[in-house]
């Protein structure tokens, strides 16, 4: 098998300006945050982000001016409220949003992954979401049943996901936990796949639980070992979301100045992931989050 192990910088360089980037993220969960910070440091521009529910990752990318499009279900940090920098960027027209229902996003990605021109859904019928979206259109059932909404195939340029463990060949494992569709469908739909992982292990470790392997190495372009790589989002069962960190961001996001300072402290400033973790509270804070002491 081909070795896919890389550094964060090497991996992030596989993302180009203007790319459509499928980003694993569910509100406060499971975002490949170390990669997101690296993309911001490398000053990517004009990215289109594809998320189920984008959280702080999308708010940061919007604040840093890295994105001009969002394709997905929602952007929200749940208990921490709306993503204010993202929201203002949309309201000012700097970011264009393609709002899709969950089944529509999954249909668009599923069609992209399976090389089908479209997949149908019965969701959204009657809403205003269909007419304003050129990637959605009503089609008749050729068998005389009810019409459905055809969802055009979406093939992201690159998918970014975080995982519990992987080998250096890019075979990726997930611990038993909630498995959101983005880990399954985004990498199969995207042209390139970048995986960060809590731990690089020997392939024999994967062979002990082949049912936990979620991605075969041959579809992965780069795998990077990044412990606590999802911080400040949660990565169950290993650690919870960092509530204090999220609240600090929400406070900073109120003003451009505080936003800049926050990004300097946590994104631009730290020379590497270790320095980021130190800035974020270091080993003691991570140990608290591992005990789900999130406050």
């Amino acid at each position: 098998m081909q070795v896919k192990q890389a550094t964060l910088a090497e991996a992030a360089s596989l993302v180009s300006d203007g790319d459509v980037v499928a980003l694993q993220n569910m509100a406060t969960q499971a975002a490949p945050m170390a990669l997101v910070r690296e993309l911001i440091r490398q000053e990517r521009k004009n990215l289109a982000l594809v998320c189920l529910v984008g959280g702080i990752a999308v708010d940061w990318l919007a604040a840093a001016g890295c994105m001009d499009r969002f394709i997905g279900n929602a952007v929200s940090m749940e208990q921490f409220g709306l993503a204010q920098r993202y929201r203002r960027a949309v309201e000012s027209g700097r970011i264009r949003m393609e709002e899709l229902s969950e089944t529509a996003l999954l249909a668009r990605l599923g069609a992209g992954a399976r090389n089908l021109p479209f997949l149908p859904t019965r969701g959204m019928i009657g809403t205003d979401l269909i007419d304003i979206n050129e990637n959605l259109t009503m089609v008749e059932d050729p068998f005389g049943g009810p019409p459905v909404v055809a969802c055009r195939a979406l093939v992201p340029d690159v998918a970014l996901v975080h995982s519990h463990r992987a080998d250096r060949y890019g075979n990726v494992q997930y611990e038993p936990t909630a498995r959101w569709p983005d880990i399954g469908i985004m990498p199969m739909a995207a042209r390139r796949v970048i995986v960060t992982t809590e731990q690089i292990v020997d392939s024999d470790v994967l062979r002990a639980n082949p049912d936990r392997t979620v991605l075969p190495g041959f579809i992965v372009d780069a795998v990077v070992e990044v412990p606590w790589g999802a911080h400040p989002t949660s990565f169950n069962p290993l650690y919870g979301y960092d509530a204090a960190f999220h609240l600090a961001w929400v406070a900073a996001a109120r003003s451009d100045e505080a936003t800049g300072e926050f990004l300097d402290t946590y994104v631009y400033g730290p020379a590497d992931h270790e320095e980021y973790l130190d800035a974020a509270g270091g080993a003691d804070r991570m140990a608290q989050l591992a005990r789900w002491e999130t406050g």
Partner: protein
Amino acid sequence: MDSVAHLDSPPAEDWTVDELMIAVLASCFTDGDQACNGMASFLPVAAFQLAKLTHAPDLIWLAGAVGLEPRPGPIPASTLEAPLWRDALMYTEQYGDFWTLALNGRWLKKFCVGAAQLDRFGNANNSFIGDDFHAPKVRLPGTAGLADMGSVGKALYYWNPNHNPRSLVAEVDFISCAGYLGGGDERERLGLSGGPELVVTNLCVLDFEPETKHMRLRSVHPGVTVEQVLEATGFEPVLPPGDVPTTAEPTAEQVRLIREVIDPHGMRRREFRRR
């Protein structure tokens, strides 16, 4: 609201409106139903648990649309994070499992909806406030699964802890969840079954007039006047013939369960604080 009346417990002496709203939502779910919740859904999560602890022990709960029949501790700060589905019987993978179950039509027939904007025909909007999708006055989080649930035959139960003319409007700026659309039989004509059933707010309970599908005042909460409701509503709801009934108070046992067992940390009140 009768399905909790059988509870052998007197009305609570001191209840708060969050507890009353939870009791009303709980009464909408019975044995044989399956219920699921999304993000920031403290009142529905409390209602499902209250129903299971009282009149509907066989109600099935799919916590966060992920964890089947968990052993819930006190409601955590998030209703979409792992602590909610502790000790689940099954993790439903969201694409292959959850949405297949939800779209099938035989299961998960009821869905609780929180909407930033809700109009007189039960259409909901979580997309944006304003008149241009691409230059909105206020960008809302987005509709996500709600845009599906409104069109696939679910009975929709809206909850709104902040009843005011901005959240209950004559017409939503954008239909991101299909209610009765223009009213009457428009929803039926599109081949859509199900639809809005009830709206539970901090002031009253509303349902929908069978013919016109226009929102109708069903009961006002104890201490709330019809006038207060009308003032707080962005349109004129249909009024029932005669006096408007008063919403049943939660029972002492319901309030005890909510305060001591289900939500001792008072997460449910966050939905009100957020306003």
